[in-house]
């Protein structure tokens, strides 16, 4: 079995073409046979070439006759409904291939934007994004917000119905590395941060460690963007 990619075009080299024909014809017959056996269905194949005086058939001349009569007994419309030739078959394949391509591009874009969102959450600048990037980013943020709100609502319902003993939220389950945050709802301070963000600044490094803080949140009164967080 070759691992080389075969170009989908008529093979001009005579001996190569003959060799390919022999191999592939054999393979094709095998595939028809397998299909017929595995699925218990009737089928036939006819292959004509300049290399054989007689056309080669599967399963046998008698078998071919049988299937052909069965075929021709059908109303014309039924015969034609799923009939294809090279042209129509290739068009179908192109359509399907385009669909796969489109889906893959969409998935890739989604991955890209998610990645960007997390980078922006930890301080990377929005400066280099064009309108379309911003649009996609905003959409992604919104989608995440929706999920989060849903989750937070369901969690709140659970804690409400369970009437959890003790105050909730004061000491969140801690992972050793993550310090306790305090959410500061001071609007003045928040605006300050946005102003900082909107002035052009160097894109900030992305450390990737658990000690990093999320921006927009008051981290024990430390100013955001200070070098302590982004060494």
């Amino acid at each position, binding site marked *: 079995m070759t691992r080389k990619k075969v170009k*989908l*075009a*008529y093979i001009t080299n005579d001996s190569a073409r003959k060799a390919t024909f022999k191999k*592939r014809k054999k393979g094709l017959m095998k595939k*028809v046979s397998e*299909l017929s*056996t*595995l*699925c218990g*269905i*009737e089928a036939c*194949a*006819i*292959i*004509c*070439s300049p290399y054989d005086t007689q056309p080669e058939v599967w399963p046998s001349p008698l078998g071919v006759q049988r*299937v052909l009569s069965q*075929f021709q007994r059908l109303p014309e419309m039924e015969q034609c409904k*799923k*009939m*294809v*030739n*090279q042209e129509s078959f*290739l068009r179908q394949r192109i359509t399907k*291939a*385009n669909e796969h391509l489109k889906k*893959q*591009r*969409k998935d890739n*874009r989604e*991955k*890209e934007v998610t*990645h*960007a969102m*997390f980078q922006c*959450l930890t301080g990377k600048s*929005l400066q280099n*994004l064009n*309108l379309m*990037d911003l*649009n*996609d*980013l*905003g*959409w992604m*943020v919104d*989608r995440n917000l929706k999920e*989060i709100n849903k*989750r*937070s609502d369901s*969690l709140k319902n659970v804690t409400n119905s369970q009437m959890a003993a003790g105050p909730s939220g004061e000491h969140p389950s801690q992972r050793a590395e993550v310090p306790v945050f305090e*959410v500061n709802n001071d609007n003045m301070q928040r605006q300050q*941060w*946005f102003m900082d963000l*909107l002035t052009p600044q160097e894109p900030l490094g992305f450390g990737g*460690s658990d000690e990093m803080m*999320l*921006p*927009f*949140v008051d981290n024990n009164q430390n100013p955001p963007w200070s070098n302590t967080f982004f060494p």
Partner: protein
Amino acid sequence: MARKSRGRQKVEMVKMSKESNLQVTFSKRRSGLFKKASELSTLCGAEIAIIVFSPGNRVFSFGHPGVETVIDRYFTRNPPQNSGTMQLIEAHRNATVRELNMQLTQVVNQFEIEKKRGEELSQMRKAQSQCWWEAPVEELTLPQIEQLKVSLEGLKMNVTKQAQKLLIENPGPPQFFASSSSGGIFPYDRKVGGFNPNMVLPQYDYNNPGYRRGFF
């Protein structure tokens, strides 16, 4: 990911027992069979006809140059007509098929490239997501969720601000939203489903790894 298909495993050559599997197998193998037949005709110029009855008794057929033509030739043993008109028709048909094959090859190649990029992107994410806020929402505690919410809302505001800034700097019809906008640009058109891969396609430059103007 659990293995879904039998892939490179040996399959016993007897009629399949499970009806549902049989249907799927028929569908896939029939498609593959036609693909092989198509390749054989293209590569070697062979004339082929294949007729297949489905488990549900529908009939599928593939023929090059055409099912009927090949059947006729088989029965009547007529040598192919070599009139000038026939040759012209055949030449034209072959040219079309050649083009279609090239088109198909192109699309498949593009797909391979995108698929590779997808795998790279997944690798990148795996290597970098050590931060708690990147974990799936279900794994987060309520306080963490509250934090994340605040941050996301802040980010959203910034994105909006930045977009407005860009719009002010570059007035004029924004081409990228032409196909989707329902009148306003912000709030962005959610009906489109967020992503519009179609918008960028003509500008993709696959030779340039940083092919976007953005920072991705």
